[in-house]
């Protein structure tokens, strides 16, 4: 078992939900696979998906919903099952 972090390539505002009324994309403890959307970064009035790059369990988020993030900042910790 190893821990990985998912990072954002973009600066902007991090969102855990696709829209204010919707459920979060994923919850802590959820299983994820490469390509699973874990959140959005909003910048320049456009939104970009942040996706998982490994298979495993999303252990915890490292940033809050609607927090400003920097490029390369770790967003979440994933533990793989290998």
């Amino acid at each position, binding site marked *: 078992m190893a821990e990985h972090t998912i990072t954002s*390539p*973009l*600066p*902007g*505002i991090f969102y855990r939900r696709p829209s204010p009324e919707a459920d979060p994309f994923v919850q802590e403890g959820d299983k994820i696979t490469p390509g699973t959307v874990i959140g959005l970064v*909003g*910048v*320049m*009035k*456009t939104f*970009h998906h942040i996706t998982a790059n490994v298979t495993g369990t999303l252990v915890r988020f490292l940033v809050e919903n609607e927090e*400003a993030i*920097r*490029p*390369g900042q770790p967003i979440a910790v994933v533990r793989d099952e290998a």
Partner: protein
Amino acid sequence: MLEVRNGGFETTIQDYPGRIGMLSLGFAPAGPMDDYAFRFANILVGNPPGTAGLEITAGGLVVVFHDERAIALCGADMGARLNGQAVELWRSYLVRPGDVLEFDYLQGPGFRTYLAISGGIDVPPVLGSRATYLPGAIGGLEGRKLQAGDRLPLGEPTLDPAAAAGRRVPASFVPTYPGYNEVWELEATRGPQADPDYMTAEDMAFFFSHHWKLDAASNRTGYRLDIHKWQWARESGGAGGGHPSNILDNGYPVGAVNVCGDQPIILCIDGPTLGGFICNAVVAKAALWKLGQMVPGWSYIRFKEVTLEEAIGLVKQQEEIIHESNLERS
């Protein structure tokens, strides 16, 4: 021909000064957000400074060259690599058919990088310019940002690419960008609707001293700043509307600080050409480039008041700096 393998987050074809002289017809000029880096990149490869090149925003671009050309990158560090080797900014290189240029994401301060290619990008001019105007979907390639599979025609270089390669901008002319959460000083003149007729002297004093936070929802159209409760010199906008920020519709200067109710918005090079809100200041032409390197959601701005004469002087100073005679051989 330049082949695009990945368009990145927002990469557009731009030229300088863009589609000027058409504000009265509703066309913003478009062009590079940071014309300082853009013009230096062109000069490095032996092009006239306004030649069409690429504006790369926040990274992610991957391109393949199919011709021998000189190239240069000026602007923010995106960890660019040419065939896997790190590329220095503010320096010209020779590329050959098959060479691959890849950009990672932002590695430090700044937000945009410019790729100039000797001969330039030879898309057809629209209304006199190759600049991409995204809100109007004209210019550049089909009026849009680049995407995988695009093939961009290149012009013929006027200077031998091998002779244009290996030159650099002297360190004293390479700008240092303020970091995240740091303040940019932005030269600006008082605008057409300032004090005492529209705002109070206290409003303007606040405007020129406050550290304004740049909102994440800022782009080539407008840069949003924080909300402020202004005193205002008038009770209402009269015939222009109920709020004292209203006026009868009039033309907006490029770089105007447009105050819409409580919120100031800097109108950038893709911005609206007219409207019915006051403009209490205008960013000096020679300072507009700084907008291109500010990071939405992170940068702060302090407006430094300059007179019109000082603003003209800054343009002249900049013209002397952005000149081929200042380049060094590396």
